[in-house]
Protein backbone atom coordinates (compact mmCIF):
# COMPACT_ATOMS: atom_id res chain seq x y z
CA UNK A 1 0.00 0.00 0.00
CA UNK A 2 1.54 3.30 -0.98
CA UNK A 3 2.06 5.56 2.01
CA UNK A 4 0.79 9.09 2.00
CA UNK A 5 3.31 11.58 0.67
CA UNK A 6 5.19 13.56 3.28
CA UNK A 7 3.98 17.13 3.86
CA UNK A 8 6.34 19.96 3.03
CA UNK A 9 6.61 23.09 5.16
CA UNK A 10 8.22 26.12 3.54
CA UNK A 11 9.60 28.54 6.12
CA UNK A 12 10.42 31.70 4.25
CA UNK A 13 9.75 35.41 4.76
CA UNK A 14 9.96 36.38 1.11
CA UNK A 15 6.69 35.88 -0.72
CA UNK A 16 8.49 35.61 -4.06
CA UNK A 17 10.87 32.93 -2.81
CA UNK A 18 7.94 30.90 -1.47
CA UNK A 19 6.25 31.27 -4.85
CA UNK A 20 9.50 30.13 -6.50
CA UNK A 21 9.50 26.91 -4.48
CA UNK A 22 5.83 26.22 -5.24
CA UNK A 23 6.38 26.91 -8.91
CA UNK A 24 9.40 24.63 -9.04
CA UNK A 25 7.38 21.88 -7.29
CA UNK A 26 4.58 22.30 -9.81
CA UNK A 27 7.00 22.11 -12.73
CA UNK A 28 8.62 18.99 -11.31
CA UNK A 29 5.18 17.40 -10.68
CA UNK A 30 5.77 17.16 -6.95
CA UNK A 31 2.28 16.78 -5.55
CA UNK A 32 3.04 16.67 -1.83
CA UNK A 33 0.88 18.92 0.32
CA UNK A 34 2.70 22.19 1.04
CA UNK A 35 2.35 24.63 3.92
CA UNK A 36 3.87 28.04 4.38
CA UNK A 37 5.22 29.89 7.39
CA UNK A 38 6.79 33.34 7.26
CA UNK A 39 9.24 32.88 10.14
CA UNK A 40 10.45 30.48 12.83
CA UNK A 41 7.74 31.42 15.31
CA UNK A 42 4.90 30.67 12.91
CA UNK A 43 6.61 27.47 11.72
CA UNK A 44 6.97 26.11 15.28
CA UNK A 45 3.32 26.97 15.99
CA UNK A 46 2.26 25.04 12.89
CA UNK A 47 4.42 22.04 13.76
CA UNK A 48 3.26 21.93 17.39
CA UNK A 49 -0.32 22.99 16.82
CA UNK A 50 0.05 25.98 19.12
CA UNK A 51 -0.81 29.66 18.72
CA UNK A 52 -4.19 28.86 17.18
CA UNK A 53 -2.71 26.68 14.41
CA UNK A 54 -3.69 23.09 13.80
CA UNK A 55 -0.73 20.73 14.02
CA UNK A 56 0.77 19.51 10.75
CA UNK A 57 1.06 15.76 10.24
CA UNK A 58 4.42 14.42 11.45
CA UNK A 59 7.05 14.01 10.26
CA UNK A 60 7.34 17.04 8.04
CA UNK A 61 9.91 17.90 5.43
CA UNK A 62 10.96 21.47 6.12
CA UNK A 63 12.59 23.90 3.70
CA UNK A 64 14.11 26.50 5.98
CA UNK A 65 15.43 29.98 5.29
CA UNK A 66 17.95 31.53 7.68
CA UNK A 67 17.45 35.29 7.69
CA UNK A 68 13.90 35.94 8.86
CA UNK A 69 12.24 38.38 11.27
CA UNK A 70 11.18 37.34 14.79
CA UNK A 71 12.97 33.97 14.73
CA UNK A 72 15.70 33.04 12.27
CA UNK A 73 16.26 29.57 10.88
CA UNK A 74 19.13 28.56 13.16
CA UNK A 75 17.23 29.57 16.33
CA UNK A 76 14.23 27.66 15.07
CA UNK A 77 16.42 24.56 14.57
CA UNK A 78 17.57 24.88 18.18
CA UNK A 79 13.98 24.74 19.45
CA UNK A 80 12.98 22.07 16.96
CA UNK A 81 15.67 19.61 18.01
CA UNK A 82 14.82 20.18 21.70
CA UNK A 83 11.15 19.36 21.22
CA UNK A 84 10.46 15.59 21.37
CA UNK A 85 7.22 15.95 19.44
CA UNK A 86 8.79 17.44 16.31
CA UNK A 87 12.52 16.79 16.54
CA UNK A 88 12.34 14.09 13.84
CA UNK A 89 11.56 16.70 11.18
CA UNK A 90 13.71 16.48 8.07
CA UNK A 91 15.17 19.90 7.40
CA UNK A 92 16.78 21.25 4.25
CA UNK A 93 18.22 24.74 4.50
CA UNK A 94 17.31 26.98 1.57
CA UNK A 95 19.02 30.33 1.95
CA UNK A 96 21.07 33.03 0.22
CA UNK A 97 23.70 32.83 2.92
CA UNK A 98 26.73 30.77 2.00
CA UNK A 99 28.60 31.86 5.14
CA UNK A 100 30.65 29.11 6.74
CA UNK A 101 29.25 29.99 10.19
CA UNK A 102 25.71 29.42 8.95
CA UNK A 103 26.58 26.17 7.23
CA UNK A 104 28.39 24.90 10.29
CA UNK A 105 25.54 25.93 12.60
CA UNK A 106 22.97 24.21 10.37
CA UNK A 107 24.79 20.89 10.11
CA UNK A 108 25.51 20.91 13.83
CA UNK A 109 21.73 20.90 14.21
CA UNK A 110 21.45 17.86 11.93
CA UNK A 111 20.01 19.25 8.75
CA UNK A 112 19.63 16.87 5.81
CA UNK A 113 21.09 19.35 3.35
CA UNK A 114 22.03 22.96 2.78
CA UNK A 115 21.10 24.62 -0.52
CA UNK A 116 21.62 28.15 -1.77
CA UNK A 117 18.52 29.68 -3.31
CA UNK A 118 20.23 29.87 -6.68
CA UNK A 119 20.34 26.06 -6.55
CA UNK A 120 16.61 25.66 -6.00
CA UNK A 121 16.46 23.70 -9.28
CA UNK A 122 18.87 20.94 -8.18
CA UNK A 123 17.20 20.79 -4.74
CA UNK A 124 13.76 20.21 -6.23
CA UNK A 125 15.14 17.69 -8.70
CA UNK A 126 16.66 15.80 -5.80
CA UNK A 127 13.54 16.10 -3.64
CA UNK A 128 11.25 14.40 -6.11
CA UNK A 129 12.76 10.90 -5.93
CA UNK A 130 13.66 11.55 -2.29
CA UNK A 131 10.03 12.19 -1.34
CA UNK A 132 8.89 9.09 -3.20
CA UNK A 133 11.59 6.56 -2.35
CA UNK A 134 12.82 7.59 1.07
CA UNK A 135 11.70 5.81 4.26
CA UNK A 136 10.79 8.53 6.73
CA UNK A 137 10.76 8.29 10.56
CA UNK A 138 7.53 6.83 11.98
Amino acid at each position, binding site marked *: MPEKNIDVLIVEDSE*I*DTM*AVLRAFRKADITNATHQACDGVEALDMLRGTGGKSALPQPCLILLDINMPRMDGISMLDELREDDGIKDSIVFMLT*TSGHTVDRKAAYERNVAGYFL*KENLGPLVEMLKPYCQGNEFPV
Partner: protein
Amino acid sequence: MMLTAKTDDQLKMEMLREGVGDYLAKPFSMEEFRVKVERLTAQRRRTIAERAILLQKLLKSNQDLERFAYATAHDLRSPLRSIDILAQWVEEDSVGTLHPQSAEHLQKLRQQIKRMEKLLRDMLDYSTMEQATDEAGEIVKGSVLLTDILALLAPPAEFTINASEAFQRLSMPRMPLQQIFYNLVQNAIRHHDGETGRIELDVEVDGPRYVFTVRDDGPESIRNITRKFSTCSRL
Protein backbone atom coordinates in the same frame (compact mmCIF):
# COMPACT_ATOMS: atom_id res chain seq x y z
CA MET B 1 63.86 76.02 19.87
CA MET B 2 66.67 78.33 18.96
CA LEU B 3 69.16 79.29 21.65
CA THR B 4 71.47 81.90 20.23
CA ALA B 5 73.45 85.02 20.94
CA LYS B 6 72.25 86.49 17.69
CA THR B 7 69.58 89.09 18.34
CA ASP B 8 69.07 89.77 14.67
CA ASP B 9 65.34 90.39 14.30
CA GLN B 10 65.21 89.46 10.68
CA LEU B 11 66.87 86.11 11.30
CA LYS B 12 64.50 85.52 14.23
CA MET B 13 61.46 86.14 12.04
CA GLU B 14 62.86 83.91 9.35
CA MET B 15 63.47 81.09 11.81
CA LEU B 16 59.97 81.36 13.31
CA ARG B 17 58.53 81.30 9.83
CA GLU B 18 60.55 78.18 9.04
CA GLY B 19 58.87 76.38 11.93
CA VAL B 20 61.10 76.98 14.90
CA GLY B 21 59.00 76.58 18.05
CA ASP B 22 60.55 79.47 19.89
CA TYR B 23 63.56 81.75 19.79
CA LEU B 24 65.53 82.54 22.88
CA ALA B 25 68.39 85.01 22.78
CA LYS B 26 71.41 84.64 25.03
CA PRO B 27 71.76 85.61 27.77
CA PHE B 28 68.44 84.25 29.05
CA SER B 29 67.03 83.41 32.44
CA MET B 30 66.74 79.73 33.38
CA GLU B 31 63.17 80.46 34.46
CA GLU B 32 62.19 81.79 31.06
CA PHE B 33 63.88 78.83 29.40
CA ARG B 34 62.04 76.36 31.59
CA VAL B 35 58.64 77.95 31.01
CA LYS B 36 59.17 78.05 27.29
CA VAL B 37 60.27 74.40 27.10
CA GLU B 38 57.30 73.37 29.23
CA ARG B 39 54.99 75.29 26.95
CA LEU B 40 56.44 73.65 23.87
CA THR B 41 56.23 70.12 25.26
CA ALA B 42 52.65 70.74 26.46
CA GLN B 43 51.74 71.95 23.00
CA ARG B 44 53.33 68.86 21.47
CA ARG B 45 51.47 66.54 23.84
CA ARG B 46 48.21 68.26 22.96
CA THR B 47 48.88 67.88 19.24
CA ILE B 48 49.65 64.19 19.65
CA ALA B 49 46.50 63.62 21.70
CA GLU B 50 44.38 65.51 19.18
CA ARG B 51 45.90 63.53 16.35
CA ALA B 52 45.15 60.26 18.12
CA ILE B 53 41.51 61.25 18.60
CA LEU B 54 41.27 62.31 14.97
CA LEU B 55 42.77 59.04 13.83
CA GLN B 56 40.32 57.12 15.99
CA LYS B 57 37.42 59.06 14.48
CA LEU B 58 38.73 58.48 10.99
CA LEU B 59 39.14 54.75 11.55
CA LYS B 60 35.64 54.54 12.96
CA SER B 61 34.06 56.48 10.12
CA ASN B 62 35.94 54.29 7.65
CA GLN B 63 34.65 51.19 9.34
CA ASP B 64 31.13 52.62 9.40
CA LEU B 65 31.36 53.36 5.71
CA GLU B 66 32.58 49.85 4.95
CA ARG B 67 29.85 48.35 7.05
CA PHE B 68 27.27 50.59 5.42
CA ALA B 69 28.43 49.65 1.93
CA TYR B 70 28.32 45.99 2.87
CA ALA B 71 24.87 46.21 4.47
CA THR B 72 23.45 48.22 1.58
CA ALA B 73 24.79 45.88 -1.06
CA HIS B 74 23.65 42.89 0.94
CA ASP B 75 20.12 44.17 1.54
CA LEU B 76 19.62 45.26 -2.06
CA ARG B 77 20.41 41.81 -3.40
CA SER B 78 17.31 40.15 -2.04
CA PRO B 79 14.66 42.38 -3.69
CA LEU B 80 16.71 42.44 -6.86
CA ARG B 81 16.72 38.66 -6.96
CA SER B 82 12.94 38.70 -6.53
CA ILE B 83 12.63 41.10 -9.45
CA ASP B 84 14.70 38.78 -11.59
CA ILE B 85 12.62 35.77 -10.60
CA LEU B 86 9.41 37.59 -11.50
CA ALA B 87 10.84 38.76 -14.84
CA GLN B 88 11.92 35.19 -15.54
CA TRP B 89 8.40 33.89 -14.87
CA VAL B 90 6.86 36.48 -17.14
CA GLU B 91 9.36 35.42 -19.78
CA GLU B 92 8.63 31.71 -19.33
CA ASP B 93 4.86 32.08 -19.15
CA SER B 94 4.52 34.38 -22.14
CA VAL B 95 6.49 32.39 -24.71
CA GLY B 96 4.79 32.83 -28.06
CA THR B 97 2.14 35.24 -26.80
CA LEU B 98 4.24 38.29 -25.95
CA HIS B 99 4.82 41.01 -28.54
CA PRO B 100 8.34 40.42 -29.95
CA GLN B 101 9.40 43.91 -28.92
CA SER B 102 8.17 43.36 -25.37
CA ALA B 103 10.03 40.06 -25.28
CA GLU B 104 13.17 41.93 -26.28
CA HIS B 105 12.55 44.57 -23.62
CA LEU B 106 12.06 41.87 -21.05
CA GLN B 107 15.37 40.37 -22.05
CA LYS B 108 17.08 43.74 -21.72
CA LEU B 109 15.45 44.21 -18.35
CA ARG B 110 16.97 40.96 -17.17
CA GLN B 111 20.37 41.97 -18.54
CA GLN B 112 20.22 45.14 -16.46
CA ILE B 113 19.27 43.10 -13.40
CA LYS B 114 22.29 40.87 -13.99
CA ARG B 115 24.46 43.94 -14.28
CA MET B 116 23.19 45.37 -11.04
CA GLU B 117 23.64 42.01 -9.33
CA LYS B 118 27.23 42.06 -10.45
CA LEU B 119 27.75 45.60 -9.16
CA LEU B 120 26.37 44.60 -5.79
CA ARG B 121 28.56 41.53 -5.71
CA ASP B 122 31.59 43.68 -6.54
CA MET B 123 30.64 46.05 -3.74
CA LEU B 124 30.47 43.17 -1.31
CA ASP B 125 33.79 41.86 -2.54
CA TYR B 126 35.28 45.30 -2.26
CA SER B 127 34.17 45.85 1.31
CA THR B 128 35.67 42.53 2.34
CA MET B 129 38.81 43.21 0.32
CA GLU B 130 40.53 45.15 3.10
CA GLN B 131 40.48 42.05 5.26
CA ALA B 132 41.64 39.87 2.40
CA THR B 133 44.58 42.18 1.85
CA ASP B 134 45.79 41.60 5.37
CA GLU B 135 45.55 37.86 5.20
CA ALA B 136 48.28 35.86 3.53
CA GLY B 137 46.58 35.17 0.23
CA GLU B 138 47.42 33.28 -2.90
CA ILE B 139 50.43 34.45 -4.88
CA VAL B 140 50.18 34.19 -8.66
CA LYS B 141 52.19 35.20 -11.70
CA GLY B 142 50.99 38.31 -13.51
CA SER B 143 50.34 36.20 -16.61
CA VAL B 144 47.94 33.98 -14.64
CA LEU B 145 46.20 37.00 -13.17
CA LEU B 146 45.73 38.51 -16.63
CA THR B 147 44.32 35.26 -18.05
CA ASP B 148 41.85 35.02 -15.18
CA ILE B 149 40.78 38.63 -15.48
CA LEU B 150 40.19 38.23 -19.22
CA ALA B 151 38.14 35.09 -18.58
CA LEU B 152 36.00 37.01 -16.09
CA LEU B 153 35.67 40.09 -18.27
CA ALA B 154 35.09 38.47 -21.64
CA PRO B 155 36.15 41.70 -23.40
CA PRO B 156 34.81 42.49 -26.88
CA ALA B 157 36.94 40.98 -29.67
CA GLU B 158 37.82 44.49 -30.89
CA PHE B 159 39.87 45.08 -27.76
CA THR B 160 43.46 43.96 -27.38
CA ILE B 161 44.59 43.64 -23.83
CA ASN B 162 48.28 43.05 -23.24
CA ALA B 163 50.61 42.93 -20.32
CA SER B 164 54.32 43.68 -20.49
CA GLU B 165 56.93 40.96 -19.96
CA ALA B 166 57.71 42.42 -16.55
CA PHE B 167 54.06 42.32 -15.51
CA GLN B 168 53.60 38.74 -16.69
CA ARG B 169 56.70 37.53 -14.89
CA LEU B 170 56.04 39.28 -11.59
CA SER B 171 54.58 37.26 -8.71
CA MET B 172 51.79 39.14 -6.98
CA PRO B 173 49.04 38.57 -4.41
CA ARG B 174 45.84 37.59 -6.24
CA MET B 175 43.76 39.65 -3.85
CA PRO B 176 43.29 42.56 -4.05
CA LEU B 177 45.18 43.01 -7.34
CA GLN B 178 42.81 40.87 -9.39
CA GLN B 179 39.87 43.04 -8.32
CA ILE B 180 41.77 46.26 -8.93
CA PHE B 181 42.96 45.37 -12.44
CA TYR B 182 39.59 43.89 -13.26
CA ASN B 183 37.90 47.19 -12.41
CA LEU B 184 40.50 49.29 -14.22
CA VAL B 185 40.36 47.25 -17.42
CA GLN B 186 36.59 47.16 -17.28
CA ASN B 187 36.47 50.95 -16.89
CA ALA B 188 38.87 51.38 -19.79
CA ILE B 189 36.60 49.27 -22.01
CA ARG B 190 33.40 50.91 -20.81
CA HIS B 191 34.61 54.46 -21.32
CA HIS B 192 36.40 53.80 -24.57
CA ASP B 193 34.92 55.72 -27.49
CA GLY B 194 36.58 53.93 -30.42
CA GLU B 195 35.59 50.89 -32.45
CA THR B 196 38.74 49.13 -31.38
CA GLY B 197 40.86 49.61 -28.34
CA ARG B 198 44.16 48.74 -26.79
CA ILE B 199 44.82 48.36 -23.11
CA GLU B 200 48.24 47.73 -21.66
CA LEU B 201 49.26 46.62 -18.21
CA ASP B 202 52.75 47.33 -17.02
CA VAL B 203 54.82 47.38 -13.87
CA GLU B 204 57.99 49.23 -12.96
CA VAL B 205 60.23 48.85 -9.98
CA ASP B 206 60.61 52.10 -8.06
CA GLY B 207 62.98 51.43 -5.18
CA PRO B 208 61.14 49.25 -2.67
CA ARG B 209 57.81 49.77 -4.44
CA TYR B 210 56.12 48.54 -7.59
CA VAL B 211 54.33 51.05 -9.78
CA PHE B 212 51.51 49.46 -11.77
CA THR B 213 50.20 51.16 -14.87
CA VAL B 214 47.01 50.57 -16.81
CA ARG B 215 47.17 52.45 -20.08
CA ASP B 216 44.51 52.70 -22.76
CA ASP B 217 44.10 54.55 -26.05
CA GLY B 218 40.64 55.83 -25.18
CA PRO B 219 39.46 59.45 -24.86
CA GLU B 220 41.54 62.16 -23.17
CA SER B 221 44.23 61.51 -25.81
CA ILE B 222 46.71 58.98 -24.56
CA ARG B 223 46.24 58.30 -20.93
CA ASN B 224 48.97 57.16 -18.71
CA ILE B 225 47.56 57.23 -15.28
CA THR B 226 48.36 54.94 -12.42
CA ARG B 227 44.88 54.62 -11.07
CA LYS B 228 45.55 52.50 -8.07
CA PHE B 229 42.55 53.68 -6.15
CA SER B 230 39.92 54.08 -8.77
CA THR B 231 38.07 51.05 -7.44
CA CYS B 232 36.94 53.45 -4.76
CA SER B 233 35.40 55.86 -7.23
CA ARG B 234 32.51 53.51 -7.92
CA LEU B 235 31.47 53.22 -4.32
